[in-house]
């Protein structure tokens, strides 16, 4: 690797063999030893478990573990290292991390879908155990004893009598050992775990508190220029006329670069526009402000999100395409004693990581090396290769720390911009997105409208539910004009409806996209859980029952569901239903756990109310109880939030708790304030004054989390805490005030933060 003036070597050592590495050779060196690709560990469950992919033992005793997933705050460096170090019997204090570049040999590197642990747990245990086995066998050979007489612990192998050697001392010999097969390995039994399932401190935090560590924005290369881009106001708009004289007159501005206009499908291609390249960031920002551009507005200029909301709600009220059918919902409605219906609306949202998209690129002939804060480095590599017309092997993608991701950084359009601009100017370029770029030119969480109907019998028992959902699908990003919700989006809270009702029907309506649509933390679960879990409380109210008791009754007896039996296509987040069933027993259990933690049923002060919601997503289960306090003027406080998560086997209890806290508040921030609107096809929110995030003073005063002890296989953690938050809040507001929230956000950005209590009668909606 070439010299990097500012990069932290520890993070960017990837892809290199150095003399200090005696075992565990890096990628692409083509050497043998432990890197023996002929070994039998390339196809274990979850992918290639060849130890050298992930583990290097260095002469000074350092155990360098390669993390192939992107670190964006979920503490994946720590969790991946814990899994390996557990089976390796490594001394944790010797563990250091290096971030992997984007390379297919690591297998899937898309750090999204809450699957880093889920997909790598077994594989990394195997890698660690294989390395430990080789060390034990090397020791046995050295001492002339049976391998069974040698035991590894805390980076030392001990044998009979006084025999003892450190991993560093054994590394060379171990490298000469043949790779064991999976069948030869002895994985540690759960009761002997000393790292997995424990509160192991973060490997990144000690650097963070010193202001150290390299995020995407922190990359500095010799001779580097900085670029910002004037993006077209609408998707598919293009530059009609450019006058860059004033921009070029700004001191520090070096030149401008026209980016290619976007054509459909939008994929991960840059939006087009004009890059201003300067010697420093401020000059580039000033230069961009001085550009005079006339835009050709293109096909999306008619998009008005307020109008679109009404159109979508109208669609949701009409019969749609049936996607799942159990029993006969029409008959159930006809025979019902009480029938209720409700419409729900959730707006576009922006992921808004605190670090906006950032990418640095440097060309050397027809090869380009990039340093980028991306969740998907292999995808980044291929889209850069495609956009630049070079083979993938000519593209190196180094992954920096991510200052938040939340799905935005799964889309590498900004990395392509950096590569194109750097090639054009012939010098390294750091391309910086400002907050305005992030908010106005994103891949937005889809806007949605839903219509639910419920039938109750004379005893208040729910006999039928109709759920109709309408939203521009994420597929519209990949296929021009796609307007029909996909099965993958429907399995996020619609086709996997857990309620024990004899009659259930799911319908969809079409909605075209007029902005780029993309993943945002927990994706379609956000709006589906909001509607379904709000509606569950509406049914409870109609039946005159306690929310929590009625929710448990809706969930019904412990059983395992298969939406395919009712005609849905269902992929269970890529997992088998045998291993990761839709288990209503576990769902009900988190409801009871959260309720117990919150003291459900306790006497509340006047103006207070409790709300509860539960949701299974990314094969994990989370229930949340929220207490609100609403004063006579409609001002809202959140005194407490209590959650229970069943994510199966968890690797780090401290960081799982932190994800539940953060994921819940992320969702509450969006529910209270989050809304992206568009007029004339252009996003209206420019910066934090308009796109509002929760602040410290708006955060709850009390928050507690129960992690359900489980030996089930690991489920997702980063996303599952988010979906129940908004409906729990809406249900709490209803309990406190009788005001039913069916449209988000509750307050929005320009609001006076008052609930409209004057307009409230029992059951009235806002």
């Amino acid at each position, binding site marked *: 690797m070439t010299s990097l003036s*500012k990069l932290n070597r520890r993070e960017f050592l990837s892809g290199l063999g150095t003399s200090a590495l005696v075992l565990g050779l890096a990628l692409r060196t083509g050497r043998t030893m432990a890197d023996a690709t002929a070994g039998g560990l390339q196809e274990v469950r979850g992918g290639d478990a060849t130890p050298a992919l992930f583990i290097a033992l260095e002469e000074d005793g350092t155990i360098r573990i390669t993390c192939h997933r992107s*670190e*964006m*705050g*979920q*503490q994946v460096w720590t969790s991946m290292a814990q899994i390996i170090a557990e089976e390796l019997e490594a001394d944790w204090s010797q563990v250091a991390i290096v971030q992997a570049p984007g390379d297919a040999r690591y297998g899937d590197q898309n750090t999204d879908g809450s699957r880093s642990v889920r997909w790598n747990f077994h594989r990394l245990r195997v890698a660690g155990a294989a390395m430990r086995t080789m060390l034990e066998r090397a020791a046995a050979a050295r001492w002339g004893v049976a391998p069974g007489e040698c035991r590894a612990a805390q980076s030392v192998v001990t044998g009979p009598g006084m025999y003892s050697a450190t991993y560093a001392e054994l590394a060379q010999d171990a490298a000469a050992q043949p790779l064991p097969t999976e069948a030869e390995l002895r994985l540690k039994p759960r009761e002997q775990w000393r790292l997995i399932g424990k509160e192991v*401190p*973060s490997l*990144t*935090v*000690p650097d*963070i*508190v010193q*202001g*150290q*560590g*390299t*995020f995407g*924005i*922190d990359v*500095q290369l010799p001779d580097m220029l*900085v670029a910002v881009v004037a993006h077209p106001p609408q998707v598919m708009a293009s530059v009609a006329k450019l006058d860059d004289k004033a921009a070029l007159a700004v*001191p*520090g501005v070096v030149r401008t670069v026209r980016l290619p206009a976007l054509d459909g499908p939008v994929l991960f291609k840059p939006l087009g526009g004009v890059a201003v390249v300067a010697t*420093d*960031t*401020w000059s580039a920002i*000033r230069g961009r402000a001085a550009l005079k551009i006339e835009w050709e507005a293109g096909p999306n200029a008619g998009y008005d999100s307020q109008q679109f909301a009404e159109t979508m709600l109208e669609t949701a009220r009409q019969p749609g395409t049936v996607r799942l059918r159990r029993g006969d919902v029409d008959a159930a409605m006809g025979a019902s004693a009480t029938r209720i219906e409700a419409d729900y609306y959730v707006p576009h949202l922006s992921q*808004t*990581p*605190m*670090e*906006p998209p950032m990418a640095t690129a440097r060309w050397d002939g027809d090869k380009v090396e990039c340093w980028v804060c991306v969740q998907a480095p292999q995808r980044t590599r291929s889209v850069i290769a495609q956009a630049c017309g070079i083979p993938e092997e000519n593209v190196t993608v180094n992954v920096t720390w*991510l*200052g*938040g*991701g*939340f799905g935005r950084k799964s889309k590498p359009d900004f990395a392509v911009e950096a590569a194109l601009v750097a090639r054009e100017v012939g010098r390294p370029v750091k391309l910086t997105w400002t*907050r305005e770029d992030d908010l106005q030119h994103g891949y937005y969480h889809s806007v949605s409208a839903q219509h639910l109907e419920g039938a109750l019998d004379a005893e208040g028992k729910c006999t039928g539910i109709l759920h109709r959902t309408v939203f521009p699908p994420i597929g519209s990003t990949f296929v021009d004009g796609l307007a029909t919700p996909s099965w993958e989006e429907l399995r996020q809270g619609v086709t996997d409806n857990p309620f024990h009702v004899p009659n259930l029907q799911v319908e969809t309506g079409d909605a075209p996209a007029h902005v780029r649509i993309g993943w945002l933390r927990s994706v379609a679960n956000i709006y589906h859980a909001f509607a379904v879990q709000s509606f569950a409380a509406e049914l409870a109210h109609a039946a005159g029952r306690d929310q929590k008791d009625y929710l448990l009754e809706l969930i019904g007896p412990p059983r395992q569901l298969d939406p395919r039996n009712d005609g849905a296509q269902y992929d269970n987040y890529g997992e088998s239903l045998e291993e990761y069933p839709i288990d209503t027993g576990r769902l009900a259990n988190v409801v009871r756990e959260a309720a117990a933690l919150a003291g459900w049923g306790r006497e509340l002060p006047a103006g207070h109310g409790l709300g509860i919601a539960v949701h299974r997503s990314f094969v994990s289960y989370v229930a949340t109880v929220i207490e609100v306090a609403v004063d006579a003027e409609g001002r809202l406080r959140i005194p407490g939030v209590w959650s229970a998560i069943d994510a199966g086997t968890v690797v780090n209890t*401290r*960081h799982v708790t*932190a*994800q539940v*806290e*953060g994921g*819940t*508040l*992320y969702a509450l*921030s969006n529910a209270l304030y989050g809304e992206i609107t568009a007029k004339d096809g252009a996003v209206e929110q420019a*910066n*934090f*004054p308009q796109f509002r*995030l*929760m*602040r*410290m*003073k708006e*955060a*709850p005063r009390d*928050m507690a989390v129960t992690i359900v002890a489980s030996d089930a296989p690991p489920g997702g953690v980063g996303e599952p805490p988010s979906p129940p938050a908004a409906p729990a809040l809406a249900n709490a507001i209803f309990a406190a005030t009788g005001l039913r929230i069916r449209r988000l956000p509750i307050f929005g950005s320009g609001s006076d933060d008052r609930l409209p209590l004057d307009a409230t009668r029992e059951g009235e909606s806002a």
Partner: protein
Amino acid sequence: MSIKLKVNGKQHEVEVSEDTPLLWVLRDHLGLTGTKFGCGVAQCGACTVHIDGKPRRACVTPVAGVGAQAEITTIEGVQGEVANAVREAWVEIDVPQCGYCQSGQIMSAVALLEQNPNPDDDAIDAGMSGNLCRCATYMRIRSAIKSAAKAGS
């Protein structure tokens, strides 16, 4: 123009336009990248530094107005009992998630505790509400500030 400034006790001279915000001088010209860019309009606090001990948003502070004698302190240079207690408390319970806003959070927390060694919840909310955290680590920030306060008392 040529501008003199003192950062973390060291004198510097930089050649920039006078409206350049302190943030970009720190990051682009002095290589002090611990101070982060989040919004550019003093709404998120990621760029918080101390100028003569007071928390300031570097993204809207023109460097020409700071003055050559003013003591600018960044996350890389903040020292002393309070700063140490805050860092320890942050590490003790792993406050940060992605960490991007945390330089600013720490600078605000240090300034708060310097001024009010024993803040209650309301004082913490008032002192810290200029700093956004999208990971929403607010619960842990509040609790770490209390434990840093305890350590200092």
